[in-house]
């Protein structure tokens, strides 16, 4: 039984069935990250994909822009409890990227400029469920929101949507990334509140 807090509730926010448990709606776009915002020049940007056998594929910004680009309309959910509904993004599907290599791997580690890492099961990245996004609401993605490009895995808590992404390493076995080593869940499904260990 939850403890009742006397007199609480006067200023409650509207609830919405599109919100996972424990989330509240925000209209602005909060920023959470562990350090300063990296600034990456497009001429230096690369996206590297490494498989479990060490094989790889790599794209420059221009090569990346030649890949099929998709529009994504989705809700996003941060582990710090804000959710944003109906956000619009453009990016390249992870299906397109992973198609470029041969792999039997089950997990991926995303690596970011600035050193951030996060682990994601490969099945959560494929099947039209994840993108490398570079536009938000019709504009190039701001550096503070992960620009020039971030991972977008909207069905998991947003710490999995690594900002300033620079590549993925595919792995046979799961390993914890940055927040996962610091107390966050290995998977991060908002609907079952996989927040912490």
């Amino acid at each position, binding site marked *: 039984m*939850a*403890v*009742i*807090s*006397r*007199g*609480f*509730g*006067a*200023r*409650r*926010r509207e*609830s919405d069935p599109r919100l996972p448990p*424990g989330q*509240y709606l925000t209209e*602005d776009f*909060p*920023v*959470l*990250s*562990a*350090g*300063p*915002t*990296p600034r990456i020049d497009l001429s230096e940007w690369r996206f590297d994909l490494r498989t479990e056998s060490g094989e790889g594929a790599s794209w420059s910004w221009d090569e990346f822009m030649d890949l099929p680009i998709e529009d994504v309309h989705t809700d996003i959910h941060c582990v*710090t*409890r*804000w959710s944003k509904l109906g956000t619009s993004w453009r990016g390249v599907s992870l299906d397109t990227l992973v198609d470029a290599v041969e792999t039997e791997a089950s997990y991926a580690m995303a690596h970011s400029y*600035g*050193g951030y890492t996060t682990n994601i099961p490969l099945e959560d990245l494929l099947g039209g469920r994840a993108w490398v996004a570079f536009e938000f609401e019709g504009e190039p993605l701001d550096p*503070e929101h992960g620009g020039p490009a971030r991972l977008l895995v909207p069905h998991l808590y947003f710490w999995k949507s690594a900002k300033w992404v620079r590549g993925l390493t595919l792995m046979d076995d799961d390993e914890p990334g*940055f*927040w996962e*080593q*610091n*107390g966050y869940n290995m998977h991060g499904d908002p609907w079952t509140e996989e927040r*912490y*260990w």
Partner: protein
Amino acid sequence: MTVGGWRPARVVETVPATPSARILRLAVADWPGSLAGQHVDVRLTAEDGYQAVRSYSLGSYGSGETIELGVDEIPDGEVSPYLVRDVLPGDELEVKGPLGGYFVWQPGGVAPVQFIAGGSGVVPLMAMVRAATDAGAAASARLLYSTRRPENAIYREELSDGAGDRGVAVSWAYTRAAPAGWDGQVGRLDDERLREAVWPPSSAPIVYVCGPTGFVEHVADALVRLGHPPARIRTERFGGA
């Protein structure tokens, strides 16, 4: 680090801290203790079962069954006005934690440490200031605290008194109005003020920056510009602008 479930917490004391902020002391049975810099999730439940949860940093650290929060009211907010105005000693809420394994300070490092706070961002840094003082490491620690006006500084007295032989050296910055006799600038922390008040990059400090998102973005960017390696800057963003 295993977090565990929700724990009942009883408000034992509320202390006005600024015109818009209050310090809450909560008794939590079997509280496992925390590291300086960690936070808790606070859960409030209304009579009809409606719930809201927000994160609040701990101003306290270490063992003991009383924890301390410092909450600043966001005027249009749902939770902070309740915590700052409505809650009374004896009232109950729930906490989960301690949370966060990264934005923490523990004694033992050799590098000097720099704390930089904006507004209520001082709360986890206060826990670190207290921990550094208790550990005898205050001489290598500095705090730069930016508030709108002097009266908006949470922990103002404790920070002003502490700056003796034993305490952490504190520098103040004011964005709207300074105290009488202040000969410094008034306004957003600029590169020059940061250069003056912060350990220089040559002494390789580890820097902790905490406050509203806009403040943290601005300060962290400036630190990088001044030559501090990004890997030595740890940030905690409280949300908002």
